[in-house]
């Protein structure tokens, strides 16, 4: 599976394994810029395509606007779901750069926060979308 390849062969452990059954979204990465669940994809299916993990979001020492917004709004409690939340949100904001709160909540259908910290997660994504980072 792609997630095991990323974590165990490439040492990119920022992508977490949660449920391991394509439900929780902790393993979300981008494939050619779109969010996918890396626990439900063979590594060979990604062969030759662009995979982006949470490690690839910051540029030149600067946090990605979503990372900065999660930091600013305390968009995490234990932090386990956070990489997947950020990757799912980054993909969604490309599709819909100016979402309503309800749309943001809908876009997180595939990501579970076991701490139930959704309030600040949604606030972080809205903050990033407004470009106040």
């Amino acid at each position, binding site marked *: *599976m792609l997630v095991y390849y990323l974590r165990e062969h490439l040492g990119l452990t920022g992508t977490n394994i949660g449920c*391991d*059954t*394509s*439900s929780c*979204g902790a393993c*979300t990465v981008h*494939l050619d810029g*779109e*969010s*996918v*669940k890396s626990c*439900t*994809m*063979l590594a*060979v*299916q990604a062969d030759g395509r662009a995979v982006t993990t949470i490690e690839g979001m910051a540029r030149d020492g600067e946090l990605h606007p979503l990372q900065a917004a999660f930091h600013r709004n305390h968009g995490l409690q234990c932090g386990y779901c956070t990489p997947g939340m950020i990757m*799912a949100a980054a*993909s*969604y904001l490309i599709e819909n750069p100016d979402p309503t709160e309800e749309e943001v909540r809908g*876009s997180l*259908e*595939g*990501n579970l926060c076991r701490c139930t910290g959704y309030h600040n997660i949604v606030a972080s994504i809205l903050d990033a979308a407004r470009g106040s980072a």
Partner: protein
Amino acid sequence: MIPAPFDYVRVASVDEAVAALSANDDAKLLAGGHSLLPAMRLRVARPSTLIDIGRIDGLSAIREDRDEAVIGALARHHDVANDPLLQSHCPIVAFAAAQIGDPQVRHVGTIGGSVAHGDPAGDMPAVLLALGATFVATGANGLTRRIEADAFFTGLFETALAPTEVLTEIRVPKSIGGWSFLKFNRRAQDWALVGVSAVRADGGVRVALTNMGLTPLRSLAVEEALAAGEDLAAAAARADENTAPPDDAFASPDYRRALVKVLTKRALEEAMA
């Protein structure tokens, strides 16, 4: 959560896929893999070989052909949900596709995979049954055949596709009347406890049910009641006839029988509005 060992081949054409299916016992086609890979990880499925058709050119296009919209089997749920042709001409397909799984799943899962998997709890099979879709399959020697939706879903996770056939196209009517797709679940992302699809066409209504038996089911009782002039409530009250709803951790058969009547009434009201 590690699959049993399997061989992997990637093919570049439908003919190569058919040849690989013919050459390998217990092989399975891999499209998006969002039904197959979870089953393999649970070792419910143990194919000898995965034949990856995910990169066959031209199999994901969505186009018009006279009075039909033709959806390539590799079109992803995301593509189906956002396709302007389907949104304007056959909106029930786009609407239902947007409710499958979650965004990540829709970025990978394909309509052909969803259909060929034959899951009675899946959203798309019942929608296509209500639409009277036609499925196009290619087999040995490049022979293609058309399978009507009413004859396609033959059993639990079983379809009319032969072991060496590849589903290539799903054809739906390009213009439909009123429609409704309703699914009921308790949590985001869950499979439907029960789903109802209704489509007006040719002066009548076709109604199909999700998760009310071993396959997606036409609700002929409801259709006949409507054709006989009964009102919507009376027709919907017959929605559980000839069904065999499952008994699982989420709902009892009796609960599903009650639910399908409620949803069918709402679906008919929406489709007839």
